[in-house]
């Protein structure tokens, strides 16, 4: 098989075309939204939301409703419950998150188990079903993706101000709480739209890993956003190629490719990577940037 064949072959199949489209869109949107998840330290919350979307998806499936809508409602309900219960300062927020997301996940499994064909359904929820998406799913993903990216870009100035310093943002009169809720809602919607591509367990990878890789490479928010969306989109495509060529699970392949990309940047990033750090340590005559700054 030549390289050209390797690249063009899968595109002959309509189901692969749709898979490519959904994977690329999902990767791109996750990259953009993931920037804030990484910078705000929301990884655990993302995990919680993705798991808590599960019972909603299961319920929607059981009653033949809209899976996206069901997942979004369940995810939002759980986030709000977490926000509410963690107002009681006796418990730390991560504890409350731990209670709720495992509960939601258990509830989802119980709901799925009421169905006859539950084991196959369960695996498609957990690990994605990107090879089985229909044409309407492509359009839903594209439409939702445009909305989510637009919201993030339009609010980036405010999101930056709040991320930098909540107290001062609040003192300046920014509606910090409402901006938080919007960000949570965007993260929830992104996670739910990604369920088809990589499933409930792996969605966090699509959200976090491209943004983390981008963070290794740049000190500029716009560059980080651009790179994260590029990594997410191309990584998802590359993962699908691997999955097609070697007959491997699609969601898992996507995650593995993204993680390999992250590992590469972690080692090879020009300033903050493993090699660059090692080189600096060896050549101690040139002092690291941090120390130069302190000296001024």
């Amino acid at each position, binding site marked *: 098989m030549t390289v050209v064949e390797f690249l063009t072959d899968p595109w002959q199949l309509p189901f692969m075309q749709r898979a490519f489209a959904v994977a690329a869109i999902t990767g791109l949107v996750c990259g953009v939204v993931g920037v804030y998840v990484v910078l705000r330290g929301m990884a655990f919350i993302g995990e919680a939301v993705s798991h808590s979307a599960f019972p909603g998806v299961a319920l929607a499936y059981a009653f033949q409703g809209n899976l996206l809508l069901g997942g979004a409602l369940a995810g939002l309900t759980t986030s709000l419950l977490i926000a509410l219960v963690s107002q009681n300062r006796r418990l730390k927020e991560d504890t409350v998150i731990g209670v709720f997301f495992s509960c939601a996940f258990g509830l989802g499994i119980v709901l799925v188990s009421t169905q006859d064909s539950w084991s196959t359904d369960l695996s498609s929820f957990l690990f994605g079903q990107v090879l089985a998406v229909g044409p309407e799913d492509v359009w839903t993903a594209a439409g939702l993706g445009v909305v989510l990216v637009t919201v993030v870009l339009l609010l980036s*100035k405010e999101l*930056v101000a709040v991320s930098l*310093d909540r107290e001062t943002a609040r*003192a300046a*009169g920014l509606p910090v709480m409402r901006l938080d809720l919007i960000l949570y809602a965007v993260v929830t919607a992104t996670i739910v739209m990604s369920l088809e591509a990589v499933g409930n367990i792996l969605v966090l990878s699509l959200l976090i890993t491209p943004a983390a890789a981008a963070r290794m490479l740049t*000190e500029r928010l716009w560059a980080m956003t651009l790179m994260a969306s590029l990594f997410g989109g191309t990584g998802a495509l590359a993962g699908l190629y691997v999955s097609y060529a070697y007959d491997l699970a699609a969601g898992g392949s996507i995650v593995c490719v993204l993680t390999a990309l992250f590992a590469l940047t972690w080692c090879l990033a020009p300033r903050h990577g493993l090699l660059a750090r090692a080189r600096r340590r060896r050549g101690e005559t040139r002092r690291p940037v941090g120390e130069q700054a*302190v000296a001024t």
Partner: protein
Amino acid sequence: MTTVEPLLQARDVSVVLGGRTAVEDTRLTVRRGDLLGLLGPNGAGKTTLLRAALGLIPLASGEVLIDGLPPGRARHLVGYVPQRHEFAWDFPIDIAGAVLSGRTRSIGWLRRPRPADRAAVDEALELVGLADLRRRPIGELSGGQRQRVLVARALASDPQLLLLDEPFTGVDIPTQELLGDLFGRLAADGKGLLMTTHDLAAAARTCTRVALLNRTVVAEGGPELLADPAQMLRAFGLDTAIGATREGRAA
């Protein structure tokens, strides 16, 4: 002629935090031209008083007025410089971007910064001596440079009243001097500044007035107040301890 309202007026302010009275019946006034140093031991309520003045926490009693207005309606008049650890220094943004974030509110929703916003950032960077480093990522700055970024961010919104929380703590000497001079000039220009500190020397050097706080204002006056040991002991809660031992002996 209308009377000139003080920029900041705290009238009998009490704040209760988690069941504990952090600030009690405190009166404080900052007029134009004032550089008021707020001194006191840890836990004296200095930061709490600043946050109350910013309208960030509810008052148990009393009121705060900024130029005659409640804090919620005077946000455009106030610049806030929090302690350095309140800021996300690992965020991927350069100095100019961080300073521009101080104008987020005045730029407005869905709008991009205009030339006037850029000019305000340039001017603020010029004032704190960071104009040459405007493109440097904030993660690579020293403590003194970080402090200057926070001051520039507050100045970028062109505030009349500047509230500063420990601006001299852990900061190198050149930055202390630069900021001290800058604060003095701002006050001379008719702005009002309120600054918490536990650095007596810096306060004595830079402030036009000082107030000693220990849950409430125990003394207020010119910087020469800091040379009075009895006042200082009272502010730092040592006189009661001494008094108690004396009473104990007498009994």
